[in-house]
């Protein structure tokens, strides 16, 4: 599992480290929602 480790508490750091974290959180949230949607999608009924 990947993880992002940054240092905080310094003045005037660069903000792109948080952009990476936000992008990672956002993408894992979307993939979770997508997998939930797929599992909840109704199964096609078999044709008699």
């Amino acid at each position, binding site marked *: 599992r990947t993880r992002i480790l940054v240092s*905080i*508490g*310094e*003045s*005037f*750091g*660069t*903000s792109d480290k*948080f952009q990476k*974290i*936000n992008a990672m*959180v*956002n993408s894992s*949230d979307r993939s979770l929602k997508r997998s939930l949607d797929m599992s909840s999608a109704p199964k096609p009924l078999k044709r008699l």
Partner: protein
Amino acid sequence: AQECQNLEVERQRRLERIKQKQSQLQELILQQIAFKNLVQRNRQTEQQANRPPPPNSLIHLPFIIINTSKKTVIDCSISNDKFEYLFNFDNMFEIHDDIEVLKRMGMACGLEVGKCSPEDLKVARSLVPKALEPYVTEMAQGPISNVYITGG
């Protein structure tokens, strides 16, 4: 021809480095304008109110903020000495640093998105050293793409 090819490769490499340094300088200029603008605004507010705001209503730089939907359930564990915190969110969140907060407050005069009114540009130019003024003027129209060599 080989020599030209090598020089061309070197030229591309140098152009790439210059581009990177320009965006780095741009970010430093934004931070300087945002912070000085904030200090100026706080000074005026305190002079008008004749007193500083209550201590529990403000937070000094540097800080970060974590924001998430109001529906999110947040579970927080704290060590006794407050050296360690573990947050569990059941939904997504965002993390932003103080400079991003100042930009969103408008403290960078809109320069971060290349939208700056003439009045704001005047304020922004007054907050940086003379050597940086040409860059501030250029930032008002969009990202820096020139290099202004002062002196020599």
